[in-house]
């Protein structure tokens, strides 16, 4: 359920990124206060563990399908919310960079969806609440199961909101919700079961691991209110301010150009600009995000495709191919001494 770059708008991506950076900065500050430097390698190696453990497929009886461990909650349980959040963030960054799972712009969305809800809502409010009267294997099992399910439900809901706010889908809100939540309920139950059995196993084998994190030792105490307020404020400020600028100017990019260049359109005096402007007004076959309905200058009212648009598209790709060919020919002529490194 990684959000992809292609499914978000820059505003949503930016707002989520700001929220992520804010939460991460707060978490770093929080753990640096009482961090022994031992925590850093443990966080790193635990990140690698989450990565590796997601390759184990646990077969679900009688369904033929399989599920895997959810990372965020387990990290929060073992490392505490702050270190857990930072660790899942680094896992997600590696996934984005090396596997294209979610992208760089959607990175903030993914950290919030998969890390924030599990570490800062499900863990402190549900897991800690259920286990507040002390740890028993029954409580640990129930607490992990319920927090994993609810954490994933919040993440899925967040995916719906982010996609809708980005305006990348035509799905009505309700339909989208009805599609996403049940699927993630099924996934969540499996993730929850696996997480719960793992945590129970750890509790039985090495109870001190869970006890030290439950006591909040070296993890910092949780002040969920502060984190929530901070994240809400940054999201609203960034999302709100940027959206306001974007809507008062038709295009966010034009706004940023206006700020840097002093004018919304890059003005170049003289005939080149006039020519380009004429061409643009003639050829922009989706002006203001609407399709031309008139069929003058060959615009097809249904698909919005114009003859010159098709020719131009083909030519662009041809040109790109030609440039590519030139580069490879040029490259081949050069000695390949460095290639076999």
């Amino acid at each position: 359920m990684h959000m992809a770059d292609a499914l978000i708008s820059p505003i949503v991506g930016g707002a989520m990124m700001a929220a992520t950076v804010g939460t991460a900065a707060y978490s770093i500050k929080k753990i640096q206060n009482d961090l022994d430097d031992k925590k850093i390698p443990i966080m790193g190696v635990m990140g690698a563990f989450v990565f590796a453990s997601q390759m184990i497929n646990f077969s679900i009886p009688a369904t033929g399908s399989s599920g895997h461990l959810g990372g965020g909650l387990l990290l929060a349980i073992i490392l505490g919310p702050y270190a857990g959040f930072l660790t899942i963030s680094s896992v997600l960054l590696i996934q984005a960079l090396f596997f294209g799972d979610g992208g760089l712009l959607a990175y903030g969305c993914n950290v919030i969806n998969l890390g924030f809800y599990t570490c800062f809502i499900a863990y402190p409010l549900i897991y800690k609440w259920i286990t507040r009267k002390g740890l028993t294997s029954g409580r640990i099992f129930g607490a992990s199961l319920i927090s994993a399910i609810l954490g994933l439900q919040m993440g899925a809901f967040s995916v719906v909101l982010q996609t809708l706010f980005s305006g990348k889908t035509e799905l009505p809100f309700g339909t989208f919700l009805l599609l996403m939540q049940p699927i993630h309920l099924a996934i969540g139950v499996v993730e929850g079961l696996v997480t719960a059995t793992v945590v129970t196993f750890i509790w039985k084998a090495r109870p001190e691991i869970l006890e030290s994190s439950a006591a909040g030792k070296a993890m910092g105490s949780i002040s969920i209110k502060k984190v929530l307020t901070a994240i809400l404020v940054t999201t609203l400020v960034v999302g709100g301010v940027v959206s306001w600028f974007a809507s008062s100017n038709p295009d966010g990019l034009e706004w940023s150009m206006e700020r840097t260049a002093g004018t919304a359109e890059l003005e170049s005096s003289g005939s080149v600009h006039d020519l380009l402007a004429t061409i643009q007004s003639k050829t922009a076959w989706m002006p203001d995000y609407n399709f031309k309905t008139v069929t003058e200058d060959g615009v097809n009212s249904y698909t919005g495709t114009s003859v010159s648009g098709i020719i131009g598209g083909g030519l662009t790709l041809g040109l790109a191919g030609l440039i590519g060919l030139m580069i490879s020919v040029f490259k081949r002529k050069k000695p390949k001494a460095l290639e076999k490194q």
Partner: protein
Amino acid sequence: MSRIVDSIYNIRLLDDLARKDTVIHRIHPVPKLLATIVYLIVVVSFDRYEISGLLPFVMYPMVLILLAELPAKPILKRLLMVEPLIIGIGILNPIFDPRGWTTFSSIMIKSGLTVTTCLVLVATTGLDQIAQALRTIKVPSLFVLQLLLAFRYISVLIEELARMLRAYALRAPRQKGIRLKDSGSFAGQLLLRTLDRAQRVYDSMRLRGFSGEYHSYGKSTIKEKDLLYLLAWSLFFIAGRTYDLPAILGYLVEEAISR
């Protein structure tokens, strides 16, 4: 099993490619990272009905792949692996919107461009240098350090996992995956081994003088050519966003023919 071993190879591959020495690899990581971010923002900012305007943006990943002499196949393979989710959400558009196929195509093009560009960034820069770039833009060393450690230990833990899976498979013939009732002890054992390993890693880091700081060995400064690289690509991206370049090209050709 072979899938697991493959994944170790896959994880290493992009980082290994980053060790090449080409025009692109030699560019300072910070401008390279920034150019990619500008690219991603510009591509994603296109409206959902846009198709032709996106086409010129093929240039960036393509030119980089060729100049950096990257093999196209593994990159395309990875692209195909992440496509299902995007298809999953995108494919519903045609059902709810008569112009949904346009939206769907637009999303597919965008995802192709953005995913490829991310992978190309890693394959031309490598995680060590990306980490340095992150430090340069003031990302705290704690985060950068554990990012590098996590990456370093992924292949170690996957090897450990592969050994455990082999042992399990030998004792459970003709069984797909791991039974849910074994999940606790299986993943739990791996987790305990991980924590023990972390302790040993920490001990050996301490013996070598680790004090919680991230040090990198000598790094070049940003030169003029690096800035020029960033500037040139950014200008191209902004031009591509402001003007519908393929339409202009098409119009010019149409005019030339009709004359």
